[in-house]
Protein backbone atom coordinates (compact mmCIF):
# COMPACT_ATOMS: atom_id res chain seq x y z
CA UNK A 1 0.00 0.00 0.00
CA UNK A 2 2.86 2.40 0.65
CA UNK A 3 4.75 1.70 -2.58
CA UNK A 4 2.16 3.57 -4.74
CA UNK A 5 2.32 6.58 -2.43
CA UNK A 6 6.12 6.56 -2.61
CA UNK A 7 5.87 6.31 -6.42
CA UNK A 8 3.54 9.29 -6.43
CA UNK A 9 5.96 11.34 -4.33
CA UNK A 10 8.96 10.30 -6.46
CA UNK A 11 7.05 11.33 -9.56
CA UNK A 12 6.25 14.71 -8.07
CA UNK A 13 9.87 15.28 -7.00
CA UNK A 14 11.37 14.09 -10.29
CA UNK A 15 8.89 16.12 -12.34
CA UNK A 16 9.59 19.20 -10.27
CA UNK A 17 13.37 18.84 -10.43
CA UNK A 18 13.69 17.83 -14.09
CA UNK A 19 14.95 20.84 -16.09
CA UNK A 20 12.86 19.61 -19.02
CA UNK A 21 10.03 21.73 -20.27
CA UNK A 22 8.37 19.68 -22.97
CA UNK A 23 7.89 21.40 -26.24
CA UNK A 24 9.50 18.34 -27.85
CA UNK A 25 6.87 15.90 -26.64
CA UNK A 26 3.53 17.40 -27.37
CA UNK A 27 1.42 18.31 -24.36
CA UNK A 28 -1.43 16.26 -25.77
CA UNK A 29 0.64 13.08 -25.90
CA UNK A 30 1.82 13.66 -22.33
CA UNK A 31 -1.78 14.08 -21.24
CA UNK A 32 -2.75 10.87 -23.05
CA UNK A 33 -0.03 9.07 -21.09
CA UNK A 34 -1.48 10.40 -17.83
CA UNK A 35 -5.01 9.41 -18.80
CA UNK A 36 -4.10 5.86 -19.83
CA UNK A 37 -2.10 5.43 -16.62
CA UNK A 38 -5.11 6.57 -14.57
CA UNK A 39 -7.34 4.15 -16.48
CA UNK A 40 -4.94 1.27 -15.86
CA UNK A 41 -4.79 2.21 -12.17
CA UNK A 42 -8.56 2.10 -11.75
CA UNK A 43 -8.97 -1.02 -13.85
CA UNK A 44 -6.24 -2.80 -11.91
CA UNK A 45 -7.71 -1.81 -8.58
CA UNK A 46 -11.16 -3.08 -9.63
CA UNK A 47 -9.73 -6.39 -10.80
CA UNK A 48 -7.72 -6.70 -7.63
CA UNK A 49 -10.91 -6.28 -5.65
CA UNK A 50 -12.51 -8.97 -7.80
CA UNK A 51 -9.48 -11.20 -7.37
CA UNK A 52 -8.71 -11.39 -11.09
CA UNK A 53 -5.60 -9.23 -11.11
CA UNK A 54 -2.52 -10.31 -13.04
CA UNK A 55 0.51 -8.03 -13.12
CA UNK A 56 1.86 -9.19 -16.47
CA UNK A 57 -1.52 -9.01 -18.21
CA UNK A 58 -2.34 -5.57 -16.94
CA UNK A 59 1.13 -4.24 -17.70
CA UNK A 60 0.82 -5.44 -21.27
CA UNK A 61 -2.68 -4.01 -21.51
CA UNK A 62 -1.47 -0.66 -20.22
CA UNK A 63 1.43 -0.61 -22.68
CA UNK A 64 -0.78 -1.51 -25.63
CA UNK A 65 -3.42 1.04 -24.65
CA UNK A 66 -0.81 3.76 -24.31
CA UNK A 67 0.94 2.94 -27.58
CA UNK A 68 -2.32 2.81 -29.54
CA UNK A 69 -3.65 6.00 -27.98
CA UNK A 70 -0.41 7.89 -28.60
CA UNK A 71 -0.29 6.58 -32.14
CA UNK A 72 -3.84 7.70 -32.81
CA UNK A 73 -3.21 11.15 -31.31
CA UNK A 74 0.02 11.52 -33.27
CA UNK A 75 -1.82 10.56 -36.45
CA UNK A 76 -4.46 13.16 -35.59
CA UNK A 77 -1.79 15.83 -35.09
CA UNK A 78 -0.25 14.97 -38.44
CA UNK A 79 -3.58 14.94 -40.27
CA UNK A 80 -4.94 18.00 -38.50
CA UNK A 81 -7.82 16.16 -36.85
CA UNK A 82 -8.42 16.53 -33.12
CA UNK A 83 -8.41 12.80 -32.25
CA UNK A 84 -7.07 13.70 -28.78
CA UNK A 85 -10.63 14.49 -27.70
CA UNK A 86 -11.93 11.11 -28.87
CA UNK A 87 -9.25 9.26 -26.90
CA UNK A 88 -9.87 11.41 -23.82
CA UNK A 89 -13.60 10.71 -23.94
CA UNK A 90 -13.14 6.95 -24.33
CA UNK A 91 -10.71 6.67 -21.41
CA UNK A 92 -12.77 9.07 -19.31
CA UNK A 93 -15.84 6.89 -19.76
CA UNK A 94 -13.81 3.82 -18.83
CA UNK A 95 -12.39 5.51 -15.72
CA UNK A 96 -15.82 6.53 -14.43
CA UNK A 97 -17.25 3.09 -15.19
CA UNK A 98 -14.45 1.42 -13.22
CA UNK A 99 -14.90 3.93 -10.40
CA UNK A 100 -18.59 3.06 -10.08
CA UNK A 101 -17.72 -0.67 -10.09
CA UNK A 102 -15.15 -0.09 -7.36
CA UNK A 103 -17.72 1.84 -5.39
CA UNK A 104 -20.18 -1.04 -5.64
CA UNK A 105 -17.55 -3.62 -4.68
CA UNK A 106 -16.37 -1.60 -1.70
CA UNK A 107 -19.62 -0.41 -0.17
CA UNK A 108 -22.49 -2.62 -1.33
CA UNK A 109 -21.26 -6.20 -1.38
CA UNK A 110 -19.51 -5.97 1.92
Amino acid at each position, binding site marked *: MWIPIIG*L*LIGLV*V*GGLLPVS*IPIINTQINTILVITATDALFN*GFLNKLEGKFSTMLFSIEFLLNTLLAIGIVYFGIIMGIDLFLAITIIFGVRIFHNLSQINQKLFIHR
Partner: protein
Amino acid sequence: MNSGWEKYFLPSYGAIQEVRSPIKESIFFGGLCFLISLGLILNLKQTRANTDKLIFLLSTQPGLVQKIEILEAQNSILQSEIVSEKHKFTKQLETKTEKFLNNYNSLLAINKYKGEGVIITLNDSTKPLTYGENPNLMIVHNLDLLSIVNELWGSGAKAISVNDQRITATSEFNCIGPIILINKSRVLPPFTIKAIGDPEELERAVSNGYIKKYDLENFGIKFTIQKNESIEVPASSKTPFASFKGNL
Protein backbone atom coordinates in the same frame (compact mmCIF):
# COMPACT_ATOMS: atom_id res chain seq x y z
CA MET B 1 -1.13 -24.94 -25.01
CA ASN B 2 -0.90 -23.46 -21.61
CA SER B 3 2.80 -22.83 -21.78
CA GLY B 4 4.64 -19.63 -22.56
CA TRP B 5 3.07 -16.21 -23.22
CA GLU B 6 0.05 -17.70 -25.00
CA LYS B 7 -1.70 -18.30 -21.71
CA TYR B 8 -2.26 -14.56 -21.31
CA PHE B 9 -4.47 -14.47 -24.40
CA LEU B 10 -6.91 -17.14 -23.26
CA PRO B 11 -10.47 -15.84 -22.94
CA SER B 12 -10.90 -16.73 -19.29
CA TYR B 13 -7.69 -15.39 -17.84
CA GLY B 14 -9.20 -15.35 -14.34
CA ALA B 15 -9.07 -19.12 -14.25
CA ILE B 16 -5.33 -19.20 -14.71
CA GLN B 17 -3.52 -19.71 -11.50
CA GLU B 18 -0.73 -17.19 -11.50
CA VAL B 19 1.60 -16.91 -8.63
CA ARG B 20 0.47 -13.91 -6.62
CA SER B 21 3.26 -11.60 -5.54
CA PRO B 22 2.02 -8.46 -3.74
CA ILE B 23 5.32 -6.66 -4.24
CA LYS B 24 5.03 -6.95 -8.02
CA GLU B 25 1.46 -5.71 -7.88
CA SER B 26 2.34 -2.75 -5.70
CA ILE B 27 5.31 -1.96 -7.93
CA PHE B 28 2.88 -1.91 -10.87
CA PHE B 29 0.57 0.47 -9.06
CA GLY B 30 3.51 2.53 -7.86
CA GLY B 31 4.84 2.83 -11.40
CA LEU B 32 1.44 3.96 -12.59
CA CYS B 33 1.28 6.56 -9.81
CA PHE B 34 4.79 7.71 -10.70
CA LEU B 35 3.83 8.12 -14.35
CA ILE B 36 0.66 10.02 -13.50
CA SER B 37 2.35 12.46 -11.14
CA LEU B 38 5.30 12.96 -13.52
CA GLY B 39 3.03 13.69 -16.45
CA LEU B 40 0.85 16.02 -14.46
CA ILE B 41 3.84 17.97 -13.12
CA LEU B 42 5.38 18.24 -16.59
CA ASN B 43 2.09 19.49 -18.02
CA LEU B 44 1.75 21.97 -15.20
CA LYS B 45 5.25 23.31 -15.85
CA GLN B 46 4.49 23.59 -19.54
CA THR B 47 1.30 25.57 -18.98
CA ARG B 48 3.10 27.82 -16.48
CA ALA B 49 5.83 28.49 -19.05
CA ASN B 50 3.14 29.31 -21.57
CA THR B 51 1.45 31.76 -19.22
CA ASP B 52 4.85 33.34 -18.47
CA LYS B 53 5.36 33.80 -22.20
CA LEU B 54 1.91 35.33 -22.49
CA ILE B 55 2.62 37.75 -19.60
CA PHE B 56 5.89 38.76 -21.27
CA LEU B 57 4.07 39.42 -24.53
CA LEU B 58 1.41 41.44 -22.71
CA SER B 59 4.11 43.55 -21.02
CA THR B 60 5.59 44.43 -24.41
CA GLN B 61 2.17 45.10 -25.95
CA PRO B 62 1.54 48.82 -25.15
CA GLY B 63 4.38 49.97 -27.42
CA LEU B 64 3.07 47.73 -30.16
CA VAL B 65 -0.44 49.12 -29.70
CA GLN B 66 0.86 52.67 -30.05
CA LYS B 67 2.83 51.70 -33.14
CA ILE B 68 -0.26 50.11 -34.67
CA GLU B 69 -2.35 53.19 -33.89
CA ILE B 70 0.21 55.51 -35.49
CA LEU B 71 0.44 53.30 -38.57
CA GLU B 72 -3.33 53.12 -38.86
CA ALA B 73 -3.58 56.92 -38.68
CA GLN B 74 -0.95 57.24 -41.39
CA ASN B 75 -2.79 54.67 -43.45
CA SER B 76 -6.08 56.56 -43.19
CA ILE B 77 -4.35 59.81 -44.21
CA LEU B 78 -2.79 58.11 -47.22
CA GLN B 79 -6.11 56.58 -48.19
CA SER B 80 -7.85 59.97 -48.02
CA GLU B 81 -5.03 61.35 -50.19
CA ILE B 82 -5.64 58.57 -52.69
CA VAL B 83 -9.33 59.42 -52.77
CA SER B 84 -8.69 63.14 -53.29
CA GLU B 85 -6.12 62.44 -56.01
CA LYS B 86 -8.56 60.16 -57.76
CA HIS B 87 -11.23 62.86 -57.49
CA LYS B 88 -8.83 65.48 -58.92
CA PHE B 89 -7.80 63.18 -61.72
CA THR B 90 -11.38 62.40 -62.68
CA LYS B 91 -12.20 66.14 -62.59
CA GLN B 92 -9.25 66.85 -64.89
CA LEU B 93 -10.29 64.07 -67.19
CA GLU B 94 -13.85 65.35 -67.24
CA THR B 95 -12.78 68.89 -68.10
CA LYS B 96 -10.41 67.58 -70.78
CA THR B 97 -13.05 65.38 -72.35
CA GLU B 98 -15.58 68.18 -72.13
CA LYS B 99 -13.21 70.52 -73.97
CA PHE B 100 -12.58 67.84 -76.56
CA LEU B 101 -16.29 67.21 -76.88
CA ASN B 102 -17.11 70.90 -77.17
CA ASN B 103 -14.49 71.36 -79.86
CA TYR B 104 -15.88 68.53 -81.94
CA ASN B 105 -19.46 69.54 -81.23
CA SER B 106 -18.73 73.03 -82.53
CA LEU B 107 -17.05 71.54 -85.60
CA LEU B 108 -20.10 69.32 -86.11
CA ALA B 109 -22.44 72.36 -85.85
CA ILE B 110 -23.97 71.14 -82.63
CA ASN B 111 -22.44 74.15 -80.86
CA LYS B 112 -21.71 77.65 -82.16
CA TYR B 113 -18.18 78.44 -83.27
CA LYS B 114 -16.21 81.59 -82.54
CA GLY B 115 -13.03 82.72 -84.20
CA GLU B 116 -11.40 84.95 -86.80
CA GLY B 117 -12.46 84.76 -90.42
CA VAL B 118 -14.16 86.60 -93.24
CA ILE B 119 -17.64 88.01 -93.81
CA ILE B 120 -18.80 87.98 -97.42
CA THR B 121 -21.88 89.95 -98.45
CA LEU B 122 -23.77 89.35 -101.70
CA ASN B 123 -26.74 91.25 -103.00
CA ASP B 124 -28.75 91.37 -106.22
CA SER B 125 -27.97 93.98 -108.83
CA THR B 126 -29.82 97.26 -108.82
CA LYS B 127 -28.68 98.10 -112.37
CA PRO B 128 -31.61 98.71 -114.72
CA LEU B 129 -31.94 96.06 -117.42
CA THR B 130 -31.37 97.02 -121.04
CA TYR B 131 -32.93 95.28 -124.02
CA GLY B 132 -31.62 91.78 -124.64
CA GLU B 133 -29.98 91.37 -121.27
CA ASN B 134 -30.63 88.19 -119.36
CA PRO B 135 -32.18 89.00 -115.98
CA ASN B 136 -30.80 85.71 -114.59
CA LEU B 137 -27.35 87.21 -114.63
CA MET B 138 -28.40 90.05 -112.35
CA ILE B 139 -29.44 87.97 -109.32
CA VAL B 140 -27.54 85.75 -106.94
CA HIS B 141 -28.21 82.07 -107.62
CA ASN B 142 -27.96 79.04 -105.36
CA LEU B 143 -25.01 77.77 -107.42
CA ASP B 144 -23.11 81.00 -106.78
CA LEU B 145 -23.52 80.51 -103.08
CA LEU B 146 -22.57 76.83 -103.39
CA SER B 147 -19.44 77.66 -105.36
CA ILE B 148 -18.34 80.28 -102.84
CA VAL B 149 -19.01 77.92 -99.95
CA ASN B 150 -17.05 75.15 -101.69
CA GLU B 151 -14.15 77.51 -102.27
CA LEU B 152 -14.23 78.38 -98.59
CA TRP B 153 -14.30 74.71 -97.55
CA GLY B 154 -11.46 73.99 -99.91
CA SER B 155 -9.28 76.72 -98.44
CA GLY B 156 -9.60 75.45 -94.90
CA ALA B 157 -12.72 77.02 -93.45
CA LYS B 158 -13.83 75.41 -90.21
CA ALA B 159 -17.38 76.70 -89.98
CA ILE B 160 -19.59 78.51 -92.49
CA SER B 161 -23.00 80.05 -92.20
CA VAL B 162 -25.27 81.75 -94.73
CA ASN B 163 -27.72 84.20 -93.21
CA ASP B 164 -27.46 82.44 -89.84
CA GLN B 165 -28.01 79.06 -91.42
CA ARG B 166 -25.09 76.84 -90.48
CA ILE B 167 -23.73 74.86 -93.39
CA THR B 168 -23.23 71.23 -92.43
CA ALA B 169 -22.42 68.10 -94.35
CA THR B 170 -26.10 67.57 -95.10
CA SER B 171 -27.01 71.19 -95.94
CA GLU B 172 -28.52 71.89 -99.35
CA PHE B 173 -28.68 74.97 -101.65
CA ASN B 174 -31.99 74.61 -103.37
CA CYS B 175 -33.39 77.15 -105.83
CA ILE B 176 -37.12 77.50 -105.35
CA GLY B 177 -37.75 80.57 -107.50
CA PRO B 178 -36.97 83.96 -106.08
CA ILE B 179 -35.62 82.49 -102.83
CA ILE B 180 -33.05 79.90 -101.85
CA LEU B 181 -33.67 77.00 -99.47
CA ILE B 182 -30.87 76.18 -97.02
CA ASN B 183 -31.41 73.63 -94.27
CA LYS B 184 -35.07 73.54 -95.36
CA SER B 185 -35.50 77.22 -94.41
CA ARG B 186 -35.95 80.14 -96.78
CA VAL B 187 -32.99 82.49 -97.27
CA LEU B 188 -33.42 85.88 -98.94
CA PRO B 189 -30.91 88.40 -100.26
CA PRO B 190 -28.85 90.16 -99.05
CA PHE B 191 -26.70 87.18 -98.23
CA THR B 192 -24.00 87.35 -95.60
CA ILE B 193 -21.62 84.39 -95.59
CA LYS B 194 -19.61 84.03 -92.42
CA ALA B 195 -16.61 81.73 -92.60
CA ILE B 196 -14.14 80.95 -89.86
CA GLY B 197 -10.58 80.12 -90.80
CA ASP B 198 -7.38 81.85 -91.87
CA PRO B 199 -8.78 85.22 -93.16
CA GLU B 200 -6.14 85.91 -95.78
CA GLU B 201 -6.32 82.39 -97.15
CA LEU B 202 -10.10 82.58 -97.37
CA GLU B 203 -10.04 86.01 -99.04
CA ARG B 204 -7.47 84.89 -101.59
CA ALA B 205 -9.44 81.78 -102.37
CA VAL B 206 -12.70 83.62 -102.88
CA SER B 207 -11.13 86.50 -104.85
CA ASN B 208 -9.18 84.30 -107.25
CA GLY B 209 -11.24 81.16 -107.21
CA TYR B 210 -13.54 79.54 -109.72
CA ILE B 211 -16.07 82.33 -109.26
CA LYS B 212 -14.18 85.57 -109.30
CA LYS B 213 -15.74 88.49 -107.54
CA TYR B 214 -14.95 90.68 -110.51
CA ASP B 215 -17.08 88.48 -112.74
CA LEU B 216 -19.95 88.93 -110.36
CA GLU B 217 -19.32 92.66 -110.08
CA ASN B 218 -19.48 92.99 -113.86
CA PHE B 219 -23.19 92.20 -113.70
CA GLY B 220 -23.76 94.72 -110.91
CA ILE B 221 -23.99 92.14 -108.13
CA LYS B 222 -22.76 93.69 -104.89
CA PHE B 223 -19.95 91.65 -103.50
CA THR B 224 -17.76 92.51 -100.49
CA ILE B 225 -15.20 90.59 -98.49
CA GLN B 226 -14.41 91.75 -95.01
CA LYS B 227 -11.80 90.30 -92.69
CA ASN B 228 -12.92 90.11 -89.09
CA GLU B 229 -11.17 89.32 -85.84
CA SER B 230 -14.09 87.65 -84.13
CA ILE B 231 -16.98 86.01 -85.89
CA GLU B 232 -19.63 83.91 -84.29
CA VAL B 233 -21.14 81.21 -86.45
CA PRO B 234 -24.38 79.89 -84.96
CA ALA B 235 -25.22 76.30 -84.27
CA SER B 236 -27.28 74.30 -86.69
CA SER B 237 -31.00 74.23 -86.09
CA LYS B 238 -31.01 70.53 -86.79
CA THR B 239 -28.80 67.84 -85.30
CA PRO B 240 -26.66 66.47 -88.12
CA PHE B 241 -25.84 63.24 -86.31
CA ALA B 242 -26.81 61.59 -83.09
CA SER B 243 -25.68 63.78 -80.21
CA PHE B 244 -22.49 62.64 -78.54
CA LYS B 245 -23.28 64.41 -75.30
CA GLY B 246 -23.41 62.11 -72.33
CA ASN B 247 -22.75 58.98 -74.31
CA LEU B 248 -18.97 59.04 -74.17
